[in-house]
Structure formats: C-alpha cells, structure tokens
C-alpha cells in the first residue's frame, strides 16, 4: 500500500506503547464502493440465465472477490502480519477439503451399483473373470445395492 503514514515507522517497533496503523479514509470508501458495485452486478447477473452452473460459478466468483476485499481492507489483512492471513486462509483450505471430499462421496453414491451387480467383488480372488463368479453372488449383491440407493436419498 503506497500511502504516507507517519505511524508506519513506529509500527512493531516494540516501544512502550502500541502505535496504531491507521488506514487512510479513501481506502475504506473505495472498499465500500467496490462492495456496492459488486452487489449490483451479482443481483443483475441473477436475472440473466447463463445456465445454472455458469450462474453459480459467477455468483461464487463475485462473492469471493467481495470477501477478499472485506478481509484485505476492512479486516486489515493487507497491512497486518502475514501470519494472520495464513491463519485465516488455512480455514478456507480445510473448508475446501471438507466440502470437496464430501461432494465426491454424496454425488457418486449408488453410481456403481449396476456394475457391482454384474461383477461382484471376490475378496479371495479380486482379479477373477466375471464369468467365473458363483451364481449365488449376484442375488446377494442386489440387496445391499438397493439399500445403498435408498440410503443415498432419504
């Protein structure tokens, strides 16, 4: 940030008193203006049908831009210790892992039931040919497959 701040040198000097890092007023006002403009854009974009996944992606990109602006200037991460940015970013990283891996599971449930029915897994001989499978196995596999499907969408 290129601004003249008489306190810049005093910051983190480990003097007897804390000297605040005062962000210039125009930065706050520009941040606010950016947020208002992005809100107008995201509401406007919702009236245009670009296909649901494009609309969702656009809404999330705009929301993330707004979140970054709030975090950087209102929450002072731009001028604060980099460690605080790392702490906050870590929560976003773990949230991403949490949501992504849950979606891998929940969006694929029941998808392989059909294949499993045709070729039941042989625990003792996993590479056995499908034709060599005992005739009782398909019937046994059908029941849990049906249960999984029902369980996927309560």
């Amino acid at each position: 940030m290129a601004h003249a701040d008489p306190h810049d040198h005093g910051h983190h000097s480990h003097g007897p008193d804390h000297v605040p890092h005062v962000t210039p007023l125009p930065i706050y006002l520009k941040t606010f203006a950016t947020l208002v403009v992005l809100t107008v854009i995201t509401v406007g974009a919702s009236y245009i049908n670009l296909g649901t996944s494009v609309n969702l992606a656009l809404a999330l990109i705009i929301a993330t831009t707004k979140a970054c602006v709030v975090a950087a200037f209102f929450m002072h991460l731009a001028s604060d210790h980099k460690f605080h940015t790392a702490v906050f970013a870590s929560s976003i990283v773990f949230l991403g892992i949490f949501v992504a891996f849950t979606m891998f599971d929940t969006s694929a449930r029941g998808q392989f039931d059909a294949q499993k029915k045709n070729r039941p897994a042989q625990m003792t001989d996993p590479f056995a040919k499908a034709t060599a499978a005992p005739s009782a196995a398909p019937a046994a596999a059908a029941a849990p497959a049906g249960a999984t499907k029902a369980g996927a969408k309560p």
Partner: protein
Amino acid sequence: MMSASTEAHEKGSPDFVVAHHFDSADTQFDAGRLGIWLFLVTEVLFFGGLFCAFFIYRNWYFDSFVEAHHHLDKQMGALNTVFLITSSLTMALAVRAAQRTKRSETVNMLFVTFLLAGCFLVVKYFEYTHKIHDGLLPGAMFSAQGFATQHAGVFFAIYFVMTGIHGLHVVIGMGLILWILIRAHRGDFSSRYYAPVEGVGLYWHLVDLIWIYLFPLLYLVG
C-alpha cells in the same frame, strides 16, 4: 500527528496496562488479535458445515432448490446486503476513530453500525413472517401446497437454519457493539488501547462476510 499521539498518551485509556507476561504493548495487542483470528477460523468451519449441507442437498434435489428459491425475495435480500456492507464500513470507521482517539466519532460510528444491524433484523423479521404465513417452514412444519417438485421443504429447512444462525450472530454482534459503545463513551479507548473495538470489528466483518456468501447462494442461485 505526533502531538495528537502524545496527547492521547497522556489522557487516553486511563486504566490500560501491559500485562507483565507481555514484552510490550505491541506484543499484547498482536496476541489478542491472533486470538480473534483463531476464533474467526472456528466460525468459518462452523458455518462451513452448513454450507456443505447446502451443496449436498442442492446437488441431490437440484430441481426443488431452483423452484423453492424463487419464493425468496431478491429485493429484500439485496437491501439486507446493502445494510450489512454499510454497517461494515461504519464499523471500520469506528475502529479508525478509536485508533485516533476520537471519542465522539467512535461512539457515533458504533451507534450507526448498531442501527444498521437493527435494520437488517427488521427486514429479516418481515421475510420470516411472510414465510411462516405461507407455510414455508422447515421439516414436518412445511405445509405449503402447489410445489411441482418433491423436496422444496429441504431448501427451506436449510434456509431457516443458515439465516437463523447468521441472524443469531447479528444479535450477538449488536450486544457486543453496544458493549464497546458504552465503553467508548466512558473514554476507555485511545490510540494506545482499542483492542476490544478492533476485535468486535473483526467479528462484525466476518458476519458480513458470511452474508456475502449466503445472499447469492440462497436468494440468487438457489
């Protein structure tokens, strides 16, 4: 600026002391701020579970979500977004005023922030009343008729839980703002010591930040 700082030194924050286990006022200040950031991390993960639920059910019952989200009022949601963004600005300005030992400016900005938070809750009250009247309630209480899809109730369950917990955060935030408003009025804060103002400010910005995601996901995209 230097003279203002010296003046603050003399008459600001009369009760402020650096605890003996801290090196300096700066270290104490940074320790407090790090604590707030760690708390905000837990808040992100807490709301993260709800966002995860939103994405799972949106994926499963996509048609219901699209149909149900048309029952939310975009204008009301956008108005509330503007209220929260503006309150974030006034909160940031309150912190800035406290940093410069401007007592009445701090109090005024906190008061405006408090009022804007109140406006948010008033709009939310009208939205909730409308939904309760239409029977668009979560779970077994869902009594609305005429939906073409099966699972519209799931959308409203998620809507009420997410906006309800967010609303609870707004109410708690109003309490915290009132607390620092009284302390600011009493003259507790100055450029030497304004940690509570900044801490509540960070919390308030996070409440705004969560709404920044809730609004498009619930009202706009569905």
